């Protein structure tokens, strides 16, 4: 088999400009939707966890919760792939700054929240999910690599898979290096079979790298400012109905995505 076919049953989006997938659709229609509250609500987390969790976790959980709600799936049984190019940059900045000045004063909570799989860990704990979960990174190709991983898991295991890709804005000296100046997160619920909730059918084909699909404003700027926003060409297709786009899945590998609406 040279192509993967999956159905999109749920979509989640959150950024300082976008409260959800409907907000993205209205931006694409030329409107200016109401921006969300300053912090992602992340309603899936119990209140005490929501207070303690880092904002990067709130972001990932928020978009995951949106996609699951739209899909009608039971989160407890859905395998999950959480992708992020940089993980929690605020914690990395804190850790490196503290290690440079007073290493023995490192906070144990910040350290355990520093693992790349912190967000998926919080998610599986909050949803009682015992299914396989993973956390991946592939720099600016993190969304494409995550999509390939989630789709291959959905097809190979014949089960729904939740894909989350999110990066929170950087802080401190690290920001100059990562260039991640704006928060963006998104999620897709992928299913190997069409259901009543399916909104689109995706056909994914590996290709040699070609330029990624271009975007109009303001999406192009968002894409520039956050590696997870590399998902936007696909999210825009999903909002608009049909078409094709090209994303990076690795430094030397492209992902051709052909989308058809589900009748």
């Amino acid at each position, binding site marked *: 088999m040279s192509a993967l076919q999956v159905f999109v049953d749920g979509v989640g989006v959150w950024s300082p400009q976008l409260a959800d997938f409907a907000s993205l659709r209205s931006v694409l229609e030329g409107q200016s939707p109401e921006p969300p509250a300053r912090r992602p609500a992340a309603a899936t987390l119990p209140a005490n966890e929501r207070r303690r969790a880092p904002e990067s976790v709130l972001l990932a959980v928020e978009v995951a919760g949106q996609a699951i709600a739209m899909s009608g799936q039971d989160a407890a049984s859905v395998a999950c792939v959480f992708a992020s190019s940089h993980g929690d940059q605020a914690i990395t900045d804190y850790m490196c700054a503290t290690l440079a000045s007073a290493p023995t004063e*490192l906070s144990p909570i910040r350290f355990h929240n520093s693992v790349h799989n912190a967000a998926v860990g919080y998610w599986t704990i909050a949803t009682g*999910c015992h299914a396989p979960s993973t956390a991946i990174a592939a720099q600016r190709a993190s969304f494409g690599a995550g999509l390939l991983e989630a789709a291959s898991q959905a097809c*190979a295991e014949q089960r729904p898979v939740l894909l989350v890709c999110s990066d929170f804005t950087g802080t401190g000296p690290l920001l100059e290096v990562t260039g991640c100046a704006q928060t963006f997160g998104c999620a897709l619920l992928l299913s190997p079979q069409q259901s009543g909730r399916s909104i689109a059918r995706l056909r994914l084909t590996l290709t040699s790298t070609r330029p990624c699909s271009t975007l109009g404003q303001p999406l192009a700027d968002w894409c520039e400012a956050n590696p997870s926003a590399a998902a936007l060409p696909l999210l825009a297709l999903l909002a608009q109905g049909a078409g094709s786009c090209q994303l990076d899945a690795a430094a030397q590998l492209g992902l051709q995505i052909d989308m058809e609406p589900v009748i």
Partner: protein
Amino acid sequence: MTPLAITAHTATSALGNGLTAQLTALQSARSGLRPNDISSVPLACWIGRVDGVEAVQLPADLQDWDCRNNRLAWLGLNQDGFLQRVEAARARYGANRVALLLGTSTASIGATEEAYRALDADGGFSDDRLYAPLHAPHSLTAFVAAALQLEGPCLTVSTACSSSAKVFANAERLIRLGLVDAAVVGGVDSLCDSVLFGFNALELISDEPCRPFDAARNGISIGEAAGFALLERAEAAPDALQLLGYGEASDAHHMSTPHPQGLGAELALNDALARAGLDAGQVDYINLHGTASQKNDEVEAALVTRAFPARTRASSTKGYTGHTLGAAGIIEATMAMQAIEHGLIPGNLGGDTPDPLCGAQFSWQNEHQRVDVALSNSFGFGGNNACLAFARAGFVA
């Protein structure tokens, strides 16, 4: 599942560079642990440090990637003819038909720590430390992709200490779906302040060499390592060791302590046995996660005792290498494979006064017997569990 052939593998850790060094150390029950001599300020603990990493020189065209973690990766790739085996696979299948899937918990965070210790007067990274791809979780895999000139699917799995076990599962799916013909899997983690002072802050580090499953165990010893394996379809190499199955599951319990009944670990074990078509009685050896932390060993000992017959042998090898975190999965997978190849059940080094929770399955000294099937357990923070099943060529469950 249809078994896959493991056509090459290699390991570099505190036990030495390559498989022969590892086997020799296991055979002679020689630990690679030593008093900590690497943190930026003193920290009293024992570590599994790889000798000679500082002297490794990356090829000239890969200099941008220079850091301890990538030097360790390059040192590891250069053992056991591994580079040549990958080159042959690349020539046979094409660079875009070979996946690269590596696990790491910290990648080159050590280089980011160094940059923070040497900030410019204006508070930013100095000009020689601005290579952005080095300061990201994917830096290990991006470096190895460049070094191996691979152009297929490429990603970093970072699920703490299960990372480089889970990559076998990613590889199997891609090969089964026909997206690639081969996959390089593995993992690298190197010693740095983040992990030493991080685990110290969690009060999980022992001030003596770790003693997995000892009644008086009091914490982990952290190590560093690089390990890799090449996976291909079984028909490409009928005489090679095989990946028979794998299992993955989540605890859904707590970020930094395992499920008290080992629920996720047992789900991963059952998934691995089911995929492999095995029942527990057919398992000859289990390389345990066995970190020597109070809770992990308690939960894992109970799982082994209830799930396996007395004839199944089980041990942790963390007393040899230390806990190599994101590299633990691949290093211990190579030990499970060596158990099959050499009929060696490594003794549970450091377990001098066995915890009474440990059943008859535990191997406290080296044992010698035929091993057809070996498992390797890996559990990570966030309740992320993986179990791998390996078998000798021609084994039929």
